[in-house]
């Protein structure tokens, strides 16, 4: 199926060159003597009815067409700017006239929102609208309609399949062969195992196909009645009987041998291919994990944890299943089907044709049922997911359920979902109960025909009883492989998409990498120079704008500003989680990009607002940055971080397990562990990003004391919401919307009466409503 919704429509901005000949002709007609710079198709009329509309950007005018007729024509010279308003399910492109009037140029559904956003940009570029004006219009539009809620959907340029990310592999267009080839290459280290497994599959198939032929021999040669020979005389028949016995024993022995060989080859095959699958799984995971560690933080900004987990766990399993099961199943099935057909047709093509006559019907029936099954099982899965989501939710929210006394309502709602799931399952059982029996009946019709017609031939002496039995046995072996081969394309596609997704991750380049001549740095003094740095996360708005700042070794800088002003972004650049978009950052005069990342980061200690503890013991967590640290050093660090006291109050002290399966520490406790981690690392540069924002004031005092100790003698950049926290800073830098607007000491900034003074005022007023002692502390810090 084609994934484009309507064959002929276009969802992007098109230039004149992109138009078809017919469109060119008809549009040139309305455009007159002006050249067509851009065309965007809309699918919605101003009335809200679906229909064809277009907006044309011409040399001197904008032209809106509805159903091919001119609806509006606006001269560019009258316009100041263009902007889009995003509503639910639709949007409007507005033109702002010189006198400030707003003209709604065209309405469109969400499917075209991307294109019209781009067109608005292009119109603004044509009008040479200033950046401030564009920004002001965008804000107006956001106020008038709400922010753009949905991320754009990307389409496969080839078939139109909707993709979540521009970089995703299109499951439909993934070149199965290419991916399979790459998968093969992954197995090249294990080629002996693969070859062995393949060989065993061949042997297994051969041994599996042998018994009916042996049985035919048995029936026709060994079990043929000896009565006709008996009339010839006792001695002869005695001899013949003995011969038959030998023959019988011989064939039974051969059969026994085949059965044994079949089992052994099956055992070897399963083991070899299973091991191969597991090895591929292990290799893939380890490759992927390496990639994940190598990728820069911007990758993690783009991707959800869940998606990454799915790559790691689900997709690798899909590939493993393909290697150890599907691939050889396909091979064995194919060989079996071909082998049986060859044997049957070689012996008697007429009987073979009768025996295999039900094949097309079986194929059709299987196809038909599998379509039906898919929708039934989808319903079952949905109902089941509903059910489990509801269990999950009420259990994690049990406290709320009980406190609002809503147990009965939850029970009712659960019962309802439970019943729905039951109904769906019943439907599935009914369908299954029809499928297999009717299929069996169909194939047994073929068996009946073979019995009847083949039996007649046996009576007529054209066919032996042994062959008749062989035909029947082969028929029973034939249909399962045929049915399984029917799903072949799906199996291939599923595994290829899984593999492709994995390869995609592995192929993702890291934005932040060491270049080849990157140098190691040892004894860092801690001179940080930020020179004309601008930064944007994803080619949108600049989050930092032309920041220049020199920080002397050992200096403590306090970074102040409202939420979203870019403080955290600035320190992530210093730690080189991202590279600046423009400008550079130097440490001791060396550009960070010329420094090996490991070397750089080993010189930086970070304490973040939301401290993260890994699953492990407190000891492990403190020693994370310096695994070789001695026990005494760890305690020393914990003491410096004011963490020792609370750690010693835990029953297992430093051996206490924390994280997922361990005890849960309070926010302040975690923060102190993470400070201890930084103390132990003893870095010349320290970054504190709102390290005390999440804790109460009493705890803050304890942490603050620890931090003062930590800061001593290091180049420090500290970010804090509570300005009092920055009392020790040598210099305060005030950021506003990505720009440095003020800097100086506390007293200088207060005297200047700018944003900092305002912020202080607000906090001081707030402090008045606090108990007296915290006010004392606050004012005490003001020096």
């Amino acid at each position: 199926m084609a994934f484009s919704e309507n064959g002929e429509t276009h969802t992007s901005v098109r230039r004149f060159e992109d138009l078809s000949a017919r469109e060119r002709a008809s549009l040139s007609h309305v455009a007159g003597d002006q050249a067509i710079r851009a065309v965007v198709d809309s699918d919605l009329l101003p009335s809200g009815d679906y229909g064809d509309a277009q907006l044309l950007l011409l040399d001197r005018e904008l032209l809106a067409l509805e159903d091919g007729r001119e609806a509006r024509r606006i001269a560019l010279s009258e316009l100041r700017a263009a902007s889009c308003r995003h509503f639910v399910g639709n949007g409007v492109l507005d033109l702002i006239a010189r006198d400030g009037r707003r003209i709604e140029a065209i309405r469109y559904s969400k499917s075209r929102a991307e294109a019209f956003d781009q067109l608005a940009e292009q119109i603004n570029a044509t009008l040479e609208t200033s950046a401030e004006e564009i920004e002001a219009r965008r804000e107006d539009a956001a106020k008038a309609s709400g922010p753009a809620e949905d991320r754009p959907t990307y389409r496969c340029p080839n078939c139109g399949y909707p993709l979540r990310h521009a970089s995703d592999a299109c499951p439909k267009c993934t070149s199965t062969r290419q991916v399979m080839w790459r998968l093969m290459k992954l197995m090249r280290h294990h080629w002996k195992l693969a070859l062995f497994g393949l060989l065993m599959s061949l042997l297994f198939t051969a041994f599996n196909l042998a018994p009916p032929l042996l049985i035919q021999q048995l029936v026709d040669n060994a079990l043929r009645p000896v009565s006709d020979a008996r009339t010839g005389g006792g001695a002869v028949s005695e001899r013949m009987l003995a011969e038959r016995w030998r023959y019988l024993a011989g064939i039974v022995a051969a059969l026994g041998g085949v059965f044994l060989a079949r089992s052994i080859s099956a055992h070897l095959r399963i083991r070899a291919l299973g091991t191969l699958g597991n090895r591929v799984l292990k290799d893939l995971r380890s490759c992927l994990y390496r990639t994940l560690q190598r990728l820069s933080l911007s990758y993690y900004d783009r991707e959800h944890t869940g998606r990454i987990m799915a790559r790691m766990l689900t997709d690798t399993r899909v590939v493993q299943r393909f290697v150890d099961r599907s691939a050889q199943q396909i091979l064995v099935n194919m060989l079996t089907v071909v082998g049986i057909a060859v044997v049957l047709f070689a012996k008697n093509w007429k009987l073979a044709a009768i025996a295999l006559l039900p094949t097309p019907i079986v194929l059709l029936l299987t196809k038909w049922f599998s379509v039906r099954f898919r929708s039934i099982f989808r319903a079952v899965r949905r109902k089941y997911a509903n059910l489990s989501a509801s269990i999950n939710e009420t259990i994690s929210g049990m406290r709320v359920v009980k406190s609002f006394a809503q147990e009965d309502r939850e029970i009712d709602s659960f019962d309802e979902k439970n019943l729905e799931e039951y109904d769906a399952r019943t439907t599935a059982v009914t369908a299954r109960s029809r499928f297999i029996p009717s299929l069996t009946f169909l194939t047994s019709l073929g068996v009946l025909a073979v019995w009847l017609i083949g039996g007649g031939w046996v009576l007529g002496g054209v066919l032996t009883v042994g062959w008749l039995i062989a035909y029947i046995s082969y028929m029973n072996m034939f249909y399962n492989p045929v049915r399984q081969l029917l799903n072949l394309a799906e199996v291939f596609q599923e595994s290829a998409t899984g593999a492709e997704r994995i390869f995609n991750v592995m192929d993702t380049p890291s934005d932040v990498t060491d270049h080849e001549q990157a140098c190691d740095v040892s004894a860092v003094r801690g001179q940080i120079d930020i020179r004309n740095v601008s930064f944007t996360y994803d080619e949108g708005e600049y989050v930092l704008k032309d920041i220049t700042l020199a920080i002397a070794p050992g200096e403590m800088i306090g970074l102040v500003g409202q939420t979203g002003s870019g403080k955290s972004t600035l320190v992530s650049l210093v730690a080189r989680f991202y590279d600046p978009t423009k400008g550079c950052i130097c440490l001791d005069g060396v550009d960070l990009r010329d420094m090996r990342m490991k070397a750089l980061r080993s010189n930086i200690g970070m304490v973040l607002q939301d401290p993260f503890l890994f699953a492990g013991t407190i000891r492990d967590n403190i020693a994370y940055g310096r695994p070789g640290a001695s026990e005494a050093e760890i305690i020393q660090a914990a003491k410096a971080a004011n963490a020792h006291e609370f750690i010693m109050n835990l029953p297992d002290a430093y051996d206490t397990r924390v994280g997922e399966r361990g005890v849960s520490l309070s926010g302040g406790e975690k923060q102190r562990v993470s400070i201890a981690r930084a103390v132990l690392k003893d870095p010349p540069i320290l970054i504190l990003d709102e390290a005390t924002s999440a804790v109460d004031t009493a705890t803050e005092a304890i942490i603050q004391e620890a931090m003062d100790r930590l800061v001593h003698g290091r180049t420090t950049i500290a970010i804090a919401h509570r300005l009092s926290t920055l009392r020790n800073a040598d210099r305060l830098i005030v950021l506003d919307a990505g720009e440095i607007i003020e800097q100086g000491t506390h007293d200088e900034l207060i005297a200047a009466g700018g944003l900092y003074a305002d912020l202080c005022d607000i906090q001081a007023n707030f402090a008045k409503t606090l108990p007296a002692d915290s006010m004392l502390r606050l004012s005490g810090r003001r020096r």
Partner: protein
Amino acid sequence: MNEITTDEFLIRAEAVRLRRSDDGGVVLIRDGREQSVGRITAAYPLTHPRRLVSLRDADGQEVGLLDNVKDLDADSRQIVRQELDRSYFMPRIMDVVDLREELNVVRWDVQTNKGPRTFLVRNVRRNVRRIGQRRFVIKDVDGNRYEIRDWITLPSAAQKLLEPYL
């Protein structure tokens, strides 16, 4: 107990009027004073689309919530309806011509009250949302929304097509 009373934010529909300004904007007339309105949205767009309608001024500040559109005079009502239909555009599906699924994406070919439409829905479980017993809201891959008011009233062929997805 509550310090905010409903009187503070509710606008009684009988007490106000709305009119269009020259450039298509909306003006609220209350106690003889005029105030331009920038954004009109329903607080419960799915369950009560015509009640508790939030009016905001040009700066995005909420002026108040209209208690019930139905109590406005005819002209004002018309204006609010138009604005609401745009701020929450959700055509109603009247018939389903075809539903086809491939690789977890369902292609819907439908008749709506706004005309024929074809759209793609990924992850049906998340994007077909059931509201009440027989009503469904469907969100397509581009973020458009469509509504099935009451699926029992759809033609029976459409119901059959929809069954596995609802």
